[in-house]
C-alpha cells in the first residue's frame, strides 16, 4: 500500500505533487485518482497538506451515533486544549450524511473544527478506523501514530463509567508532540460500526 512516488491529479485536472521517500512501516497518507474525502464545500481534502507542521487528529463521528454525540463536549475540549500543536478534523464516513446535515449537527453540538465527508472511506482506511467515535493521530510527518478510543468512558455498551479514568487520545497527542513512540496496543472504541455504513 505504501507507494514511493505518487503523482496526484488535482480536482482542477492539473498535476502535480511528489512525496518524499517513505521508510516507515505505516502507510503514508495518500489519495488515489478517484477516491478522496472532501470538506463540506465538496473540495477534496488533502491531509498531506493540511495543517503543515502540526499534528493532525481525525475524529470519526456520525450525526446519528448516540455515543459519538455524547462525546462532543470531550472532543471539542481536547481540540481546544491542543490547538497550538494539533489540528482536529471531524470525519463523517456515512454516505448519507449531507454537508447541510453535518453543519447543523456541528452547530448543535458546539463543534468548531472543520468537518470532512468521507463517504468512500479513504480516511477510514488510512486511519484503520472501525467505530464512531474513534480517533486517529497523525504526526507532523503524517504518519499514523495512534488510532483507537478517545478514553475509557465506555467499557462496553451499557457499561459506562461516571467519568473516564484513562485518556488514550490525549496521551497519544502528547506523545506525538514530544515525538515519543506510543507503547502498547490501542484499545478499540465502543460505539457505532463504520463497516455498517458501507
Amino acid at each position, binding site marked *: 500500500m505504501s507507494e514511493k512516488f505518487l503523482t496526484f491529479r488535482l480536482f482542477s485536472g492539473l498535476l502535480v505533487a511528489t512525496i518524499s521517500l517513505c521508510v516507515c512501516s505505516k502507510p503514508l497518507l495518500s489519495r488515489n485518482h478517484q477516491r478522496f474525502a472532501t470538506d463540506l464545500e465538496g473540495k477534496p481534502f488533502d491531509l498531506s497538506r493540511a495543517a503543515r507542521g502540526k499534528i493532525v487528529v481525525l475524529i470519526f463521528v456520525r450525526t*446519528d451515533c*448516540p455515543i459519538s*454525540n*455524547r*462525546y*462532543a*463536549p*470531550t472532543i471539542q475540549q481536547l481540540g481546544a486544549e491542543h490547538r497550538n500543536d494539533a489540528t482536529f478534523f471531524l470525519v463523517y464516513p*456515512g454516505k*448519507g450524511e449531507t454537508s447541510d446535515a453535518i453543519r447543523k449537527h456541528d452547530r*448543535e*453540538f*458546539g463543534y468548531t473544527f472543520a468537518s470532512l465527508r468521507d463517504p468512500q472511506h479513504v480516511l477510514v482506511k488510512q486511519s484503520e478506523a*472501525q*467505530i464512531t467515535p474513534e480517533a486517529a493521530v497523525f504526526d507532523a510527518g503524517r504518519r499514523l501514530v495512534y488510532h483507537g478510543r478517545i478514553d475509557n468512558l465506555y*467499557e*462496553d*455498551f*451499557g*457499561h*459506562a*463509567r*461516571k*467519568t473516564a*479514568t484513562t485518556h488514550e487520545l490525549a496521551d497519544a497527542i502528547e506523545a506525538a508532540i514530544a515525538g515519543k513512540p506510543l507503547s502498547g496496543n490501542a484499545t*478499540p472504541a465502543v460505539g*457505532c*460500526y463504520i*463497516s*455498517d*455504513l458501507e
Partner: protein
Amino acid sequence: MTVVPLACMAALVSGFGRVTTAQQKVTTHTNPAQPQITFNRDIAPILYRSCARCHRPGEAGPFSLLTYADAKSRAHQIAVVTKSRFMPPWLPDEGDLKLADELRLSADEIARIQAWVDKGTAEGDPADLPAKPKFAEGWQLGKPDVIVKATKAYALPASGSDNYWNFVFRAPVDRTRWLKSIEIRPGDKWLVHHANVLVDRQQNGRRHEIDPGAGFGGMELTIESEAFDPDSHFLFWKPGSIPYVEPDGMALRLDKDTDLILNTHLQPSGKPETIQPTLGLYFTDKPATMHPVLLQLENDRMLDIPAGDKHFAVTDQFTLPVDVDVLAIYPHAHYLGKDLRATAKFPGGGSETLIHIPDWNLNWQAVYRYAQPVKLPKGTTISMNFVYDNSEKNVRNPNDPPQRVVAGNRAVDEMAHLWLQVLPQQSAQEKSDPRTPIVEAMARHNLQKNPDDFEAHYNLAALLMGRGEVPQAIAHFEQANRVRPNEPTVNNAFGAALLAAGRTEESVPHLTAALNARPDYFDARYNLGNALASLGDFRGALAQFQAAVRINPEDANAEANLGSAFAETGDLKQAKQHYERALGLNPNHELARENLQQLNQTLHDSPK
C-alpha cells in the same frame, strides 16, 4: 462471582472487528440446507416486536429500527448488543414466575441476527416483509382527561454524568378523583432513562424548589404523609413502556391540593437540552376497593462497603403476617449493585425465586409486574439478597479509585431496597383495614433492625393513633421526635396526639416548634389554635386560627373555630361572619350551624 458474566465477556471480545469469527460459530450449527437468512423474512419480525417500540421516531431509542436501511446501517451493533443481551434491555433472568411484558430475545432469535449479519445482511424478498407494527401516535391510551405540563423546563447540560431532576406538578383536580393511569411524557424521551411519579399529598416536595415550579435536584426523595395512607402504586415510566392501567377497584386517590412529583433520571446527550415533561391523567369513576401495600425490604444500615470489595452481600428478611398476592416487584440499588435476588421461603417448606437480576444496571431499572399475581401464604419469609461490587473492576463504580461507600440518597451512595406491591388477602368477616397488619409488622421489623428508624417510629405511631391507641402512639412519636427533634411533621403529629390525650400543655411546645420550622403549616396552626383555646388563651387561639385561615381559606373547620375564637373574645360580629363563611364552605358543618344559631339567639336577645 465474576464481574461480568462469561457470555457477556465473550461478546465484548468478539464485538470489535471480530464479529464475523464469533458468528461463524453460530452458523455452523444451522442446517446447511436452510435458506438464506433475510431481513424481510427473519429479522424484521424480531425488530418489529422487540425493538421498534423504542427505536422509532419520537421514541426513546436514539435511532429507528423500522426499515432495512435502518437495520443495515446498525447491523454489527445490533449483532453485538443482542448477543450480549444489552438489548433489548431486560435485566431479570428467566425464572419460574412469568413477568408481564418480558422483553427478552430467544436464543434462536439472537442466533438468527448473528447469522444475518455474518452472511452479509441480505434484504430478501419484499413479499416476505410483514406489515409494519402499528403504534398509537401521541398519547398511548387516547386523550387524557387532564394534561399537565411542568411549569418550568429543566436545562440539561451537554456533558457530565447521569443527572437527576424532580418536577413538581400541582394535581389539576378540584375534588377527589380516582386515577387509573398516568402517562408520563418526559419530552425528549431518549434523554430520560426512567421516571417515577410520587404522590405528595402534603405538598412537601415543593419546599425544595428555589423558585415555585422550578423543580429540584436529587436522585431519591422521601415523601412524608401524616395520614395513614400508605403509597401503594408504582407509577413508573421506562422507555418503550405503555402506561399501566390499574384494574377496577385499584385506582389511586387523587385529592385536591396534592402534588405529583416526577423524579427523572437523565443522561446528557452531548449538546445542551431542555426537558419539560407532561403528564396525562386518566380517571375512573370506580373508587378503590382493593388497597395494595408497598412492602419494603431494605438494609441500608448493613451498607458499609469497603473500598475494593468485590462481593459485599446485604440481606433482609420479612415474614408475612397475612396471606398476600404479590402484584409487582421493584429491586433498587445504585451503581455498585451487582447481583440482586429476592426469594420466598414457604412456611411448609420449599422456596421460589421472586426475581433474580444477575447483572444489575441502574440505567435499566424497572418495576416488574407478574403475569399472574404470586400467592404467598401467611408465614412466608421474603428474603432480599443483594451483592455489591465496589472494586475498580466494576466500571460503573462512581469512585476512582474505589472509596468506602455507605447508604444514602446520592448517586455515589448506595441503596439496598426491594419493594413488592402486595394485595393483602382478607376474609369477608374481617372488618379492619387489611393493610394495617403489614404496615405494623413492617414498622416493627424495621425497629428491630434499627431502633432509631425515624420512619418506622412515625408510621407505627400514626397507625396506632388511627387505631385509637393514643398512649402507645405517643411513645413512638416521642421516639421519632427524639431521632429528629426539628421535624415539623412529627412535632405537629406528636402535639396532636398529646392534645388527644388531654396533655394540652405538653402539646404547645411541639406545635410551636413545628410552626417555627414551617410558619405556613396549616395543620400545626389549627392544632395550636385548639390547644390554646382549651387552655383558655382565646387571644392566642384567635391569632392561630386567623393565620390558619390565611394559609387555607377553604377550610370550614378553621373558619368555624376562628368564629368561636372571636365569639370567646367578644367580637360577635366577626364571629358571625366566620361561622357563615364556614357554612358557605360546608353547609353541613354542624358545629358552625349550632354556634351560629346560638350566636343569632344571643344577638337577638340582647340588641345593641
